[in-house]
């Protein structure tokens, strides 16, 4: 075998955190190598080291896309690489496609691909745009991509953007391609397409490293898997010699139950009524298109879909952060379409927002202050416009202890907490409202398995307590596991409401891609005629 990449004893320390701890990794030329691990395991950091974005605290990097040469003593012929900046890594044939795409939205596909390496003419006085286009077309033809060089990046789909990223790396002559969680934003079909692309790349001698925390993908697409836990390499295995269970255990460090199971629901009266809602996004493009559904007491109503299909806008309309163009929202039978957010909160709606750091918490505030967010004008915290910080402090401490927020310090600022603890605090605060209806949007995004389990259990508790829960998530196992009924959104519409226990993953995938499979199990819908309102 020939190694294309060798990371030798890489340690990367941040103030207070050891992100990578003596990691050694070897990647064979012309293969796909998966890097697996939980949130915060250090995967991205390790690859940033390889890409020259970070300088390792300790350790050495060897790269050669054509395979590292070894002399008689087994020593590497070439000295280790020092990458001071991505430029150096690029020159050494390393390309990286980041978790968040590194594309300039208002620029065209061709401009993005050639960025930093523009072909020039007239002695550098102008970019040779024809040559740039041709190179892009050549490249995409060679690898069987289908991209339009003159399209604006902001206008193309996520899948295409990802290809642009890959082309960008190839344009720079990358032989080693790093993809950081490339599948997180893709539909199942797009994932399949991506894996084909990876095959094509390795067939042409490229080496691919891809990061994921999805076991199935690692097994399906990679030749070899390396698992990181707490910044350490806990094992490298060939995919044909391992199993899901083994990988899961390596990843978490203990045996894990891979599925959440919930008891059957006992739905009652409607708590949330969404009726023909149409709304536009920030760019004034229709994002939610005539969506209707009802959430009842004692049930979890799930909304699945690939991100960006109108779920965010729908949630914003329901929670009062966005005005619908048409349609109505009713809470407990009362029309709240025009009610401001504060009124909805008072009427019993709690809301776990998808973006905890933008919306759910004021990062500069401490937990005491964050604990009253949304109730700052209401008893028991406010009286006559004056805030009772003593009571607010008690409240925050209550949430902290009940939801195991760490560190257990009501004076700690929100930004000093880790993501999972931030999320637990929000969950606790929203649950403390004792809502009749909870809107939970991606409640476990970026949260590790332990906290995820905890949050799932709380959601089910709430449901069992006879409250209505609207759960929006792009994690299929989550929505399938928790929901009693499941709506799939595609391009702003609910394409189907299905029974999550009956529907298969393939059927869901097709629905999420906008196609209707022949037989989809419909979710049972009960009319509430005669059902008593509490």
């Amino acid at each position, binding site marked *: 075998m020939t190694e294309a990449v060798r990371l030798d004893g890489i340690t990367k320390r941040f103030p207070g955190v050891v992100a990578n701890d003596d990691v050694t990794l070897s990647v064979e030329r012309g293969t796909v190598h998966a890097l697996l691990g939980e949130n915060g395991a250090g995967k991205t950091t390790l690859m940033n080291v390889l890409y020259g974005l*970070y300088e390792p605290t300790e350790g050495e990097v060897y790269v050669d896309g054509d395979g590292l040469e070894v002399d008689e003593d087994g020593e590497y012929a070439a000295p280790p690489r020092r990458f001071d900046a991505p430029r150096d890594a690029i020159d050494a044939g390393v390309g990286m496609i980041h978790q968040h795409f590194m594309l*300039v939205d208002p620029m065209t596909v061709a401009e*993005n691909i050639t960025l930093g390496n523009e072909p020039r003419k007239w002695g550098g006085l*102008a970019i040779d745009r024809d040559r740039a286009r041709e190179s892009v077309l050549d490249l995409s033809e060679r690898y069987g991509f289908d991209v339009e060089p003159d399209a604006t990046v902001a206008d193309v789909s996520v899948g295409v953007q990802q290809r642009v990223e890959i082309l960008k790396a190839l344009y720079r002559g990358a032989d080693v391609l790093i993809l950081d969680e490339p599948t997180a934003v893709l539909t199942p079909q797009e994932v399949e397409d991506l894996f084909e692309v990876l095959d094509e790349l390795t067939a042409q001698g490229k080496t691919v490293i891809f990061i994921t925390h999805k076991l199935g993908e690692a097994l399906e697409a990679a030749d070899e898997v390396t698992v990181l836990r707490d910044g350490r390499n806990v094992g490298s295995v060939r995919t044909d010699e391992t199993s899901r269970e083994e990988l899961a255990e390596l990843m978490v460090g203990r045996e894990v139950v891979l599925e959440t199971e919930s008891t059957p629901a006992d739905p009652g009266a409607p708590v949330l009524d969404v009726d023909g809602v149409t709304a536009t996004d920030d*760019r004034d493009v229709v994002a939610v298109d005539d969506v209707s559904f009802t959430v009842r007491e004692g049930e979890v109503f799930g909304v699945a879909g690939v991100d960006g299909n109108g779920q965010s806008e729908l949630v914003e309309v329901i929670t009062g952060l966005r005005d619908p163009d048409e349609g109505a929202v009713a809470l407990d039978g009362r029309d709240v379409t025009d009610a401001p957010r504060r009124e909805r909160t008072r009427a019993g709606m709690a809301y776990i927002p998808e973006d905890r750091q933008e919306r759910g918490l004021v990062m500069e505030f401490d937990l005491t202050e964050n604990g009253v967010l949304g109730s700052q004008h209401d008893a028991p915290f406010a009286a006559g416009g004056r805030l009772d910080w003593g009571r607010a402090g008690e409240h925050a401490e209550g949430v902290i202890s009940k939801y195991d927020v760490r560190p257990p310090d009501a004076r700690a600022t929100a930004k000093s907490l880790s993501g999972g603890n931030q999320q637990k605090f929000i969950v606790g605060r929203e649950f403390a409202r004792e809502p009749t209806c909870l809107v939970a949007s991606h409640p476990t995004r970026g949260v590790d398995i332990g906290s995820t389990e905890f949050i799932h259990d709380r959601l089910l508790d709430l449901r069992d307590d006879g409250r209505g829960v609207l759960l929006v998530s792009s994690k299929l196992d989550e929505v399938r596991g928790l929901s009693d009924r499941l709506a799939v959104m595609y391009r702003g519409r609910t394409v189907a409401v299905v029974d999550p226990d009956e529907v298969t993953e393939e059927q869901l995938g097709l629905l999420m891609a906008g196609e209707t499979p022949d037989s989809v199990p419909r979710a049972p819908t009960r009319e509430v005629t005669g059902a008593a309102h509490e």
Partner: protein
Amino acid sequence: MSDDAVEAGAGTLDRLTSVGLRTGIGLVALAAFAVVVVVGALTPGTPLGRFVRVLFANSTVSAALRLSVPIAFAALGGIFAEKSGVINIGLEGLLIIAAFGGVYVADVTGSVWFGLLGGVVTSVLLALLFAVVCIEFRADQIIAGLAVWLIALGLAPFLSQVVYGSTNTEGVGTFRTVPRMLAESSLPVLSTMVVDGLAWAADLPTVGALFSATPVVYLMFVAVAASWWTMNRTSFGRHVRASGENPKALDTAGVNVSLVRYKAVLLSGVLSGIGGAALALSIGQFSGSGPTMVNGKGFIAIVAYLFGNYNPIGALLSTLLFAGLDALQLTLQARSLFAIPSELVRTVPYVTVIVVLALFGRTRIPEAAGDHYESGEE
């Protein structure tokens, strides 16, 4: 027709309508303007008729061009800085310091051209300070820009006091109009022919002003064209835009973001330096009491490029609009055409800016403008 096509079509349509709104308002304004012009032209005796005559008078146009110079240069500078992600609200300060530096160097060397150069150098030095503070020390750009303004506002009159004993400097030479310069130059054959030609052209109605302007006015047009080209056709321009939209993308593409930003901010220093020096050297004196002779032109420049949507040509057009209003207000006052008190007429450009901003407030600023960027920061 597939869903994709429908969706794409709808998106484009939506974008078209939002662009359309802007164009629409523009068209309505243009139509209203056209009506005024036509009615005015048809009724020459009326105040409206005289107003239209003033509007198209050679003198109004040439005043507008002259008044445009400092604003347009500062606006071009502002475009480069802000497009690269560094909001430079210190343009006013750069103009001030360049105005003083220009006069001082012109005074010492006796040459307006060296004066212009001197203005550029002083402005670049201040811009460098701003760049270091923003890029190296992660200062808040708005406050640092404000500081640049305040420093120049104090330093220029201070130096003037030290050197000349008063906040107003002594008089130095000024830029002459090009025909005059040619006439005074020692190229007899060429200059008489060209001078005659220019003299003939200068008498043309309205556009005549273009043929008897000072070199800095022509330099302004050159700078606008060059800025447009640089921004849209060169690698540097592309890097500048990427650095303002998504610096991380530029960084990971192997381009040094800090370097791009340094260059862009220094370029804003160069351009503002030309503008400030040209302003002072058109009068041959720096006057530094109160808000100094720059008197808000740097802020108008910001409005001009925002209104011009970061396009150098758009910025020039909006600069001409504001400068034109200013020129018009002076002419209208001198000819007492309308019985509007002069103090109120003077507010017209400012009120226009506010109205324009209220109507076109949604200029999209570069995504990363105002944010500090550090390579390697997750």
